């Protein structure tokens, strides 16, 4: 069975590194579910290369973590930038929260790399979950339970 693929944004990695001190026990439990799956090679995490510049003193450890085969960091290059533009244009037209460039980069990465879900704790981004302007991408707090839509 193909291992599952999640996309993590900078907020999620930050909460991972600070032990979720501002998160509820349920939210921490969700992070642990994903961590366990990744450590057991049952899930992979894709993220934008930009995240390394956002976690500051944890950057060196993050870079080491991202060297594991279960991780994939994606450069914000041509196709990603084009998708960022599309997302920002579509959300603006739909009169919903228009994600800033950095947030839209994670959304674009999740969409183009076909992640099962984008994991974040940012309420403004969570509210975009499933909308046509983000190609129906599932955006949720980290959790390892089934999130794939049945077809």
């Amino acid at each position, binding site marked *: 069975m*193909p291992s599952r693929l999640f996309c993590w944004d900078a*907020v999620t990695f*930050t909460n991972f*590194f600070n*032990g979720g*001190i501002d998160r509820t026990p349920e939210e921490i439990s969700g992070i642990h579910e994903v*961590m366990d799956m990744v450590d057991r090679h049952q899930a992979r995490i894709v993220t934008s290369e930009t995240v390394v510049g956002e976690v*500051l003193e944890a950057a060196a450890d993050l870079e080491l973590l991202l060297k594991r*085969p279960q991780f994939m960091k994606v450069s914000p290059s041509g196709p990603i930038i084009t998708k960022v533009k599309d997302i920002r244009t579509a959300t603006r037209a739909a009169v919903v929260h228009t994600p800033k460039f950095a947030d839209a980069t994670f959304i674009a990465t999740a969409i183009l790399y076909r992640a099962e879900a984008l994991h974040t704790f940012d309420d403004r981004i969570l509210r975009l979950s499933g909308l046509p302007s983000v190609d129906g991408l599932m955006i949720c707090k980290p959790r390892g339970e089934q999130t794939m839509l049945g077809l």
Partner: protein
Amino acid sequence: MSEPGRRIVIAFKLEGSSRDDGLVRFADFAAFIEGTLATLRAIERAETNQRHAKIEYRITQLEVSSAALAIEAVDTPQLRDTEHVVATRFAQGLAAVRDGLGEMAAFEPPVRDALARMLAPLRRGVRSITTNFGETEIAIVGRTDGLLTLVEFKEETAAVGSFSGSVDALNVHGDHFFYLYPAAGPTRIKCVFDAAMLGKVRDAVKRYTTVTGLIEYAEPSPFPQRIIVEDLESHPDPDTLPSMKSLWGKYPNLTRGLDAVAFIEQMRNA
């Protein structure tokens, strides 16, 4: 389209042109069958990130007079989940061709190329190809915009960047290249390198490696088609790298008392 637990059966029906009285030319039917298998295998490789497709298909119905064909995946318990993923993706690919190019961007070049081969008879003597997945029917009639652009539209761009994956399939005859197998995204990327880097590349074979260089894209695919390698760095053995569990909560003061969302926002505005 595809429900876990149910056997995969995909049925096709081709309709020939009026000048052939609706009959399908044998060459077109043969090309269609070959292209269909190529597409299913390309999707399986893309979805599983494996080099070889494992699912076997057998014919459950074949009517040459009306060019109807049904196939099912041979029941292999450990492949059942993959079978459903492949069938669903296959249906999405056909729907994308029917509906237009925009949706095709999510498919890798090998899958698009195989789909183009499978549907090539529509550009010759076949009028329509109808595919059934249980109760879902996808009919492609004539030369849809999606079909034409699937074959013809390729705009190449390039950018300097890096990509990580496992190095394999090293070739040193003629052009020097290897294939990079990433953890997500494209199934594999051809990486062309200068002969002077051969030693470094040999050391990287079978290891998870970051390749830096000129990354070429063939739009609308979001994935690199080829990398002209400038440098590569083999990653340490995974057993020597930190696990997620070992790094959890290692920096309790990372956000300096702020909520993580507020912290990231502050960093971005600084």
